[in-house]
């Protein structure tokens, strides 16, 4: 999974959020067909499923700036998985490679990531919109 920005961002922490676990959203008498309410699995039979390890790579101008090894990616109910950088870094691209998963969805191994949050700020101005001029022909009535 990749997140490229059109302008450099100074980032200091990244939060990865996995799908809700079956146990956190299934109560007696309610609808609980799966770990994310019918969308992506039947973990009561085949799950739960997690990303167990991943590699987070931060790039600037195509060059690798920093690499972080990530463990299990937790659901939002557990606060997700927070990666705090020792110092803020200027990047323009983030890449997450999933290395290992656990659990299954419908007999298949899956890798699921629900959300990502990147705490940062502008390291340079956002690119201005290109203003195009169109010269239209005059049409006589």
């Amino acid at each position, binding site marked *: *999974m*990749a*997140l*490229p*920005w059109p*302008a450099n*961002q100074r*980032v*200091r922490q990244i*939060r990865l*959020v996995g799908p809700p676990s079956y146990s*956190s*959203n*299934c*109560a007696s008498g*309610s*609808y*609980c*067909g799966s770990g*994310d*309410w*019918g*969308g*992506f699995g039947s973990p009561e039979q085949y799950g739960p499923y997690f990303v167990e390890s991943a590699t987070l790579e931060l790039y600037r101008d195509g060059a690798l700036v920093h690499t972080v090894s990530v463990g299990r990616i937790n659901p*939002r*109910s557990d*606060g*997700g998985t927070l990666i705090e950088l020792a110092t803020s870094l200027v990047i323009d691209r*983030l890449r997450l490679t999933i290395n290992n998963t656990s659990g299954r969805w419908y007999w298949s191994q*899956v890798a699921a*990531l*629900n*959300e*990502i*949050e*990147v*705490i*940062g*700020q*502008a*390291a*340079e*101005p*956002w690119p*201005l*919109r290109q203003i195009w001029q169109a010269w239209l022909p005059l049409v006589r009535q």
Partner: protein
Amino acid sequence: MGGFVHLRLVVMNADGRGKTVLPLNLTGLGLGTADARDAKPIAPRTGWLSPPDQFTDVAADDPAQWNVPNALPEYAFSQRGLGDIATSVIHNPNVYANPSLLTPFTNNSPPPGSVAWAELWLDTNQFTGAFCYPPAYPQPCDDFRQDNELRAVLWDTVPVTPAGAFTMTVPADVMGFIVLRDENGRLVRDWNRGYASIAQGSSWSRPGEAVTCTGCHMGHVSGSLDDVLELAQEGWQNVAPYAVASASSYHQTAYETFVPGQINDRRGWIPAPAHGPDRAPRLTEPYQTGYQDATTGWKSENG
């Protein structure tokens, strides 16, 4: 009510814990399907002290006494000159601030680094006048006050720092809204909700006050910044929404719930309750079944 959303009234502690659903049964009044939409709390809170009342005086309702200077031609009716009006200070430490993932709403601010200028437009006349469509519709036309066609008036333009902060002296007790512009003076675009202005408010500050507003809040869709307020006021925010997400593979559904673009885009995202939806969606219903505003572009945890 006839919609999919059935509202219940819940009491809770000040920290949001201890939620208890209040029973509501109006069958005896012939309102068996009524819900808590219009409920008003009537039980006094205990263990809580209200902040001290800092009320000083009532803002003038007479336009001639408003804090708008008659030096501006639009406000020639005012009895106050530029040096006579009461003012206050509004400070925004970070117009880019976004709520965290732990709250329902995010993506409510322009892209970081996009704003160069903040304008305040006074909007004292948004409720004055009405247009009576001739001939004589609707009656009684004669009782209508003709629209004076006085719209928002530009008060001031101030620079916005790279971290998104600006400070401005504003007329007190006056309605207005703020417009964010880029360094070319154009409206800032590319934020996921695409507003033309922020912080539309009715008299947001009293004379002599210094008001701090963080982010580009828009009423009930703004979400809370409480859990990230310190970060936000230091100029940090979630910048993921302004990237273009892609993935090597993903699960495709009819409603594109799992496309990569959803991973950093929570427009109108409404969390499903901890125990999951109360019931499974019916085939005849929209795919949101109570956890999603049907407005285009709004997504829910349920898809």
